Structure formats: structure tokens, C-alpha cells
């Protein structure tokens, strides 16, 4: 045998010791192979930057989930007014740096004196909720439609591809602004803020799916020509078997990569919408909306602008670092 590594032969199976070395583990007789997923995970573990991003993301998720607990610990809540801390003449917080104190670690808002720390913590809920759920909507729609177009082809592909082209060319931000501003105040048992969040998730997700759909369609087109698909067919496999057993396992990696890159984009879109006043309305806290109201005080109370800005920046950066790491870990040749 001339094959490079440990070409095994039936007659002379390697000894148990060799086996262990080959498999990189010392367990049992059967040699445990390393799946591509495991290889990717091992690669990701070595990527310090991506790991840092991942940890920050986890911390942010914890903050969002535990928002009431955290604010209780600090003894604040996002909606109580503290007018006593506001300078009546300029409407800005008393004291330096936007009223940062032991009680209010990030200071208080101008005019009404709401606690900025509590509002940032609660704002994380909105950002992550909209970011994740809209990405979920986009990924589900994009995967289903992309696979349909790529796998079944023909007129279905022609129609779906044209719809994707159309949506990608659509001035989506303007459309979302228009749509959200004419939304009714009550819908599907939700009121006010609930309706707005729900609509934002749907609309951001809806305009996001063509990006996923395009990638998934292209991948499906190339995967469906692989010989292992033919091999499955030559064994009598039907379309569903091929779709679920042969194609989807190979689509998971690109879908994960695309999702991790989509979440920060969607968080930014939410911030932009709230900034423009069509997203979440006060008193509910959102980073974009805080940034927007901070504009009026940018020279008298710059801290009020810096803090939500940093929150957005750190969140998006963390997601992007993590996403890049995931892509690098999943991408290299392994996926063929």
C-alpha cells in the first residue's frame, strides 16, 4: 500500500497501542473518528479573539435574561424618575459625568433622571430579542426557500430567485419605517411596545431571508451535484431522504455562519429604527432610542451618549468576532 497515513489492511490490523495513537484517544477497540463538527470546535477553541467574543455574547445573553435580578441587586429600575438628581436649570443630571454615583453607576438620564444602568440592562433584552428572533425568521425562511429553489430547480427556482432579487433591491429601511409607523396599537393580543417589537422582528427577518436564501440556494445547487447524492439515489433513496440525510447535514455549517453574521446586523437595524423613533418607544428602554434622545445633550451630558453607544459597539463587535471565528473554524476545506 502506498497511501500516506496508516493504510490499514485486513490481515495486519494495527496493534491496540497504534490504534490509540491514530485515533488520538485510548478508548476501546473501535476507532472513533473526528467529525467535522468536532474539528471545527477544536479549531474554535484555539481562536482567542473568537472565544472572547463568544464569552461576551454569553455574558450579554445572561444580562438580558437576568435583567430584573441585576437591576434589583443594584436597587434600581429602568422606569422610576429621579427628578431630584436633575439640575432644574439645564435639565441635565447634577454632578459630573452624567450623574455617575454609587447608586447610579452609569448616571441618570437628563430631564427625568431614570437610571441609565438599569435602562442599558433592559435595553439588552430588546436588542438581543430582536436580533436573535429576526435572524431566526430570516434563517428559517431563507433555508426553506433556498433549499426549495436549489434542490427542485425549474420554475420554482426561477420564481424564488426573482423574488429574492426584488427584495434585495428593495429600499427596506424606508419600507420598515413606513410600515412600523402605521402599525395599529393593538394586534394579536399584543399592545404598544409588544406590537412594535413583534413587527420589527417580522419585518427585519423578512427582509433578511433573501441573503440567507441566496447562500443556501447556491450551496444546495452545488451539493446536489455531488456524487454521494447520486450514490444515495442509486441505492433507492427518495428525495426526502436525500434532502434530510445527505444535503441538510452539509448545509448546517453555512447556515450557522450566516446566522452568526446576521444577528449583529439585525441588532444594528433595531438600534437604527429605535433611533429614528419608529422602534421601541419610551418608557421602554432601547439603546438606539437612548442614543437618539442623547443627541440633544451631546455637549452638556456626553456620557449619556457614550454609554448606549458603547453598549451597541461592544455587542456588535463581540458577535462579529465570534461569527468570524465560527466561519474560519467551519470553512476550511473540511466542508467539501
Amino acid at each position, binding site marked *: 500500500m502506498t497511501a*500516506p497515513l496508516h493504510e490499514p489492511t485486513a490481515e495486519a490490523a494495527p496493534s491496540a497501542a497504534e490504534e490509540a495513537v491514530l485515533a488520538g484517544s485510548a478508548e476501546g477497540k473501535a476507532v472513533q*473518528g473526528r467529525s467535522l463538527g468536532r474539528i471545527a470546535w477544536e479549531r474554535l477553541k484555539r481562536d482567542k479573539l473568537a472565544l472572547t467574543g463568544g464569552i461576551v455574547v454569553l455574558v450579554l445573553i445572561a444580562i438580558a435574561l437576568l435583567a430584573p435580578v441585576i437591576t434589583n441587586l443594584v436597587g434600581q429600575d429602568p422606569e422610576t424618575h429621579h427628578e431630584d438628581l436633575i439640575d432644574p436649570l439645564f435639565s441635565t443630571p447634577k454632578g459630573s459625568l452624567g450623574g455617575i454615583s454609587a447608586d447610579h453607576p452609569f448616571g441618570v438620564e437628563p430631564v427625568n433622571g431614570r437610571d441609565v444602568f438599569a435602562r442599558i440592562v433592559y435595553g439588552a433584552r430588546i436588542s438581543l430579542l430582536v436580533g436573535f428572533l429576526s435572524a431566526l425568521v430570516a434563517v428559517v425562511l431563507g433555508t426553506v426557500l433556498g433549499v426549495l429553489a436549489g434542490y427542485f430547480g425549474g420554475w420554482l427556482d*426561477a420564481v424564488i430567485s426573482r423574488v429574492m432579487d426584488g427584495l434585495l433591491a428593495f429600499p427596506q429601511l424606508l419600507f420598515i419605517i413606513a410600515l412600523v409607523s402605521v402599525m395599529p396599537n393593538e394586534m394579536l393580543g399584543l399592545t404598544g411596545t409588544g406590537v412594535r417589537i413583534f413587527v420589527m422582528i417580522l419585518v427585519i427577518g423578512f427582509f433578511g431571508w433573501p441573503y440567507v436564501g441566496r447562500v443556501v440556494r447556491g450551496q444546495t445547487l452545488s451539493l446536489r451535484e*455531488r456524487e*454521494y447524492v*447520486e*450514490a*444515495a439515489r442509486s441505492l*433507492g433513496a427518495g428525495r426526502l431522504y436525500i434532502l434530510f440525510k445527505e444535503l441538510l447535514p*452539509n448545509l448546517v455549517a453555512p447556515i450557522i455562519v450566516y446566522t452568526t453574521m446576521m444577528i449583529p446586523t439585525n441588532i444594528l437595524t433595531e438600534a437604527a429604527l429605535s433611533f429614528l423613533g419608529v422602534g421601541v418607544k419610551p418608557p421602554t428602554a432601547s439603546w438606539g432610542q437612548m442614543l437618539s434622545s442623547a443627541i440633544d445633550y451631546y455637549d452638556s451630558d456626553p456620557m449619556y451618549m457614550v454609554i448606549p453607544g458603547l453598549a451597541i459597539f461592544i455587542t456588535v463587535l463581540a458577535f462579529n468576532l465570534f461569527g468570524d471565528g465560527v466561519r474560519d473554524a467551519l470553512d476550511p476545506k473540511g466542508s467539501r
Partner: protein
Amino acid sequence: MSEKPEDAAVTTSAQSDGAGPKPAAGTTLTKDAAPGETLLKVTGLQKHFPIRKGLLQRQVGAVRAVDGIDFEVKSGETLGVVGESGCGKSTMGRLITRLLEPTAGTVEFEGRDITHLGVSGMRPMRRDVQMIFQDPYSSLNPRHTIGTIIGAPFKLQGVTPEGGIKKEVQRLLSVVGLNPEHYNRYPHEFSGGQRQRIGIARALALNPKLVVADEPVSALDVSIQAQVVNLLDDLQQELGLTYVIIAHDLSVVRHVSDRIAVMYLGKIVELADRESLYKAPMHPYTKALMSAVPIPDPRRRAAKSERILLKGDVPSPISPPSGCRFHTRCWKATEICTTKEPPLLELKPGQQVACHHPENAEDQAPQDTVLLTAAKEAVELVPDAVVSADAAQKARAEATGEEPEDAK
């Protein structure tokens, strides 16, 4: 590749299988068709891939990948199929394994018409007809373990082998010369040759009768090619398999085939016993293929005087040349070749050829003697030794004395 002496030894015994009655082979044999009986019969087989354009997907033309071929494969024999890239060999292989549906013609397996069977109709037949693929990197799903890959045939066919799937997978792994303990590994942990063995194990899992191998070794390192060919050969003897082996040049199929079909642009141009084909090829295209791997570049023609150099590339199968499809590159082409398609005729027992002016046989259109201009150019690429006497004379009469100068 398989020019080594030990290959020859193995293949000699393999050849004796096909023709005469087969010595009682492996004990696993439960074949219906006795050796020598027709296992697969193909009549007028066509595959035209429609070319569609626009939103409405209107058909604007067709790739005539396989355009009317007839042949039979007898139980226990090996049919080699050769031809340049794009001649429709893979398409033919996918038609007989019914991965593609023919546009016209019939495919009969053990006397049963399987031409238009659907997925569920074909499913039981799938046990008997299996395929080995060309690219060992794309033929194994990277997300599945070897155990899953080789076990898939049993799952898909709802068969539980004696002793369970895992045990059978391990047995198959050792049959193809791999370590049975590696069933939990993933394809990327194996070399190209090993992967091809995995593909072979998968094809053999259901104990098929006919195995179609589409360029089974062309993606492999030359040093590994012989091993894989020998494995296929040994397995044939052990299991009484019938093979259709596709290759793009004759060297791969040379030792393992009992009969060889030469394809050009979707047609079989010559179909003959191995001996006859090698001793006296009749079709000019076969002769060119045999002289060497064709080198399309005429500037290099002087370098290798033994070779027949085909000029240009294979024409497009979308609008193949009229008459004989080879006439644009043939050095014997005459008027009749451009208008009348030569039928595939048995000019000698065991040797069919489709040519108006075959080599090593009686001219089928002796009245037509004037060479085409293209043929006159082509003949300059053909060494004197190869051009049959009168054709050479004819050519020289016209292309007076230029050739010797050129050749210098």
C-alpha cells in the same frame, strides 16, 4: 498503469471468466442469469439534456449526450467503455443504472424493461445494479461516518444482514482491504485510494449482479490505480460480478475488459472483443485512441511520430456533425461521410464498427474515393506507418510531397 507483470497475471485469469463457462465462483453466488447469458440489454438508448432559457424555461436546444446506442452485457463479463471527455460515457453509465431517465430507447435488465421505472419501481432493482463513482472526494458524504455510508444500502433497502449491519459493514471493510475497526471514522480521515475502496464496499453491500464503474481510478494517483483495478478484478472472480467499466483511455480497461465499446459523441463507433480490438482496430477513432492519448496540438505532431494526432477538440454534442460524427477529425473522411451516417455493422464475428472506410476490413463505400479537404489536413498528422496503403497514396497524391518536409 496496469502494465506491471503481476497485473497481467491477475487479468489473464479474469479474461477466461467472461468468454467460456465460468468456474464455480464464490459461494455467495445466488445469481439468476447464468454466466454468458444476457444480463443487460440496451436498445436505441438516447439522452438529450434540454437547454432551457428564460423565466418560462422554454427549451431552446438539447445536448445530445447519448444519441442512440445498442449493446448487451453478458453475465460475468466486463465491458470496457472508452472515449474522450464529453463523449457521453458517464451519461450512458447513469442511464443504465437509471440515475437518469432515457429520452428514448430501452434498457432491459434480466429481460425486464426498466427504462421508465420510477424511484419506487426501481428500488428493488437497485440491489442488483450498483455504481462506483469517479471522484472519491465527492462520492462520500463528509458528514457521515464510514459505518453510516456503507450501512446506508441496508437501511435504504430495508435489509437486515445476518449478524447485524455493523458486523456486515466490518466484513465489507475487510473485503475491500480496509481496517474493520475504522467504521466510526469520517471520509476525510482516509486517502483517495482508501476512499475509493469505501465506495466499492458500498457498491458491493447488497451483493449486486451488475456494477457500473465510472472512471473508478482516474482521480487516483497512478501508483494506487493498479491496486484498485486489481481489487475490482479479484472481487469479480470472488463474487461473480458483471462489470461495465468506463475509462477515458484504453490503458485502464485494457487488461480487465472482455469486450470494449468505443464511444464518440454519444455513439458507439466500435464494439469488439478485446483481442480483436487490440489486434486489428477497425474504426479510425479507435486507432487514434490506441496509438496514444490524443494530443490535440498540431504543433507537437513532429515530436511523436508513432502517434495519430487528432486535430481539434470533440465537437459540441449540441449540434454534432452530420453523417459520421468523426468526419471533422478523420483522415479518411470522404463525401459520403458527411452525408450518410455509417451504421454499426458486424464486419467480423465479434467486431462491430460504424465506418464507411474501416481499417483492417473491406471498404464499405469503395466508390467514394475523394478525400475531404479536412481529411487531407488531418492525414498530415498521421504517420505513414498508420495510414492504410491506399488512403495514404490518395492523400499523398493531393498533398504532394509536403508531408515529408513537414515531418522533418
